[in-house]
């Protein structure tokens, strides 16, 4: 039991990496299932379209699902039609683009894994390229083998082409090698870009490393507590309303935050070195709360320009 608890604590600490790893594994597994169970190269003029569809459409779908499931997308977009200045005002547009880039980076883990695993496996690329009509490519791959040019479409299907078995194997091996090299190059490029991106973000951080760690821990706990307290408050409010309906009595007074308060705490937060606030909620309770109606620093309760911090909200995957 102790060991299990240790593992669980470790898992909670590395939640982000674990969730990305899990998504990557899941995608790789899905790709293997599709390759073995569903994919059958038609070995005709449809090869190119078929191979490209299997390679690219699932990754597009995974990207869109990534956007759909990311909570940051909805944090940014909720209510924006009613209040277009939230996104489109000149000093907000930069922040909006930053958040969009962050969301895209998080959502691209699954699609890039799919493409990389598919290329490393090789069958989709093989099918697609044997449907390619580019004469130079076919000649290069065929390398003078007899009947290769005419039967190029039929190479992926065993026993359908009229080439010698060894010739067919050679050509297919070459195409598969190209696919795997492309796959590895993709993985290398993604890793380099990810490292560069993280370096630049950390470099541009206005706070130090330890404060950043504290900040991330604070955000996690604030989010957790928010969930549990919101559930508790919702339960109490529901209980009070339902009871009052059934007993046909007046409902007792119950304090609940008003719409403006919710607006103020919902924006994504930007750190300012003048303040010591770690989130919009923190700023709200210290400056605009009930007890602080007469704020000493004027304009502080004005949350009109909620610009965006690019990394502190963390990579809350879901």
């Amino acid at each position, binding site marked *: 039991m102790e060991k299990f608890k240790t593992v669980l604590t470790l898992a909670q600490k590395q939640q982000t990496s674990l969730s990305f790893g899990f998504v990557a594994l899941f995608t790789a597994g899905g790709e293997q299932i599709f390759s073995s169970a569903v994919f059958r190269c038609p070995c005709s003029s449809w090869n190119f379209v*078929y191979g490209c*569809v299997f390679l690219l459409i*699932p990754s597009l779908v995974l990207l*869109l699902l990534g956007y*759909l499931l990311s909570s940051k997308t909805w944090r940014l977009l909720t*209510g*924006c039609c009613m209040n277009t200045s939230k996104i489109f005002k000149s000093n907000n547009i930069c922040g909006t683009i930053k958040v969009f880039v962050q969301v895209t980076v998080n959502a691209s883990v699954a699609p890039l894994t799919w493409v990389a695993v598919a290329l490393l496996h090789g069958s989709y690329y093989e099918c697609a390229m044997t449907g390619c009509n580019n004469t130079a490519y076919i000649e290069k791959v065929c390398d003078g083998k007899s009947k290769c040019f005419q039967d190029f479409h039929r190479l992926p299907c065993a026993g359908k082409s009229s080439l010698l078995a060894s010739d067919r194997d050679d050509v297919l091996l070459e195409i598969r090698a190209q696919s795997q090299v492309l796959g590895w190059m993709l993985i290398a490029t993604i890793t380099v870009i990810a490292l560069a991106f993280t370096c630049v973000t950390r470099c541009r951080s206005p706070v130090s490393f330890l404060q950043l760690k504290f900040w991330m821990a604070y955000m996690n706990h604030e989010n957790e507590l928010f969930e549990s307290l919101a559930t508790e408050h919702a339960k109490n*409010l529901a209980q009070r309303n339902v009871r009052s309906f059934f007993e*046909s009595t007046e409902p007792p007074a119950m304090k609940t935050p008003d719409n403006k308060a919710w607006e103020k705490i919902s924006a994504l937060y930007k750190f300012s070195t003048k303040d010591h606030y770690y989130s919009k909620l923190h700023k709200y309770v210290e400056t605009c709360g009930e007890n602080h109606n007469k704020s000493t620093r004027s304009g502080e309760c004005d949350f009109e320009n909620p610009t965006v911090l690019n990394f502190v909200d963390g990579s809350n995957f879901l």
Partner: protein
Amino acid sequence: MDGFQTVFKFFLNQKTTIGYSFMALLTVGGERIFSMVSFQCPCNKSQNFIYGLVFIVGPALVLLIVGYFLSSRTWKLFTGCCLNPRKLCPKGNSCNCVYVFAQITVGACIPPVMWLTVALLNGTFYECAVSGLENNHVVDLFCKGKTDTCRVELPRVPCGKSSLSPADNQELLLMLRAQSQILGWLIVCIATVVGLIGTCYKNCRSQVSYLQLKFWRKYIEKEKEHFDTYATEYATKLADRNLKSFFENKDPEAFPFPNHSAWEDISSLYTFCRSEQYYSTLQRYVEKGNKDKDDEMKCALDFVDGIEMM
């Protein structure tokens, strides 16, 4: 025990995703069973197309209707509407009714789309359907560069009983399957794009901010739970009181209970008003009572119920 609690909490949070994945698995399983157990392509020109089409579209239609049946919002909208048709469009604003109906339809469309995807990715139904098409363009597409017997034998290809050579047979089958799978992927892609755009639009038009929306969803869930509990409890108490009074042959004691018009009031779909602080029709009723019904003219229709699976 703590560990299990955490894991359980995590899964509870992801219940929508898990629910949809489970539905997808169920669809795949169902499709496999159908293909293996009951699907047998007739392999003749007159019947292939109808047979294949029925197997593709029929279950999708059934799943759509079942989706309508199982959505509680359908019944919230339609209960009592024959006797009082104005209930359907309470403020004469037909836009609202269409919007609610559209919402219900979108929720009910998910299982049929899953079925269509799985059926097309498998390829058997499409193969059967398209090989029975009589359209010259389609047949030419498949039989390009082949002998004339191809046209005649095309409907028999899915059964493997045609008199074409095995190589030709295999090639035609593979081409049909490839088309089917490409169509399946396109349907998935289009459904996802439409889903994303729809959700973006819905969230964009939200009148409240993100955290308040989260709180609101929790409130609606809790209200439903508590309503069920209290309804059971009060029904028990009322039944108790009535039966006691009957068997003991006494006058029944006073029992406070909401009257018929109160039930009517809380049953309508909720309209949100920025100027007010209510999270449901029930809350508006208990806090406001019957006064000030005119304010509701400016309010927008409810959208918070989210994607109710059942």
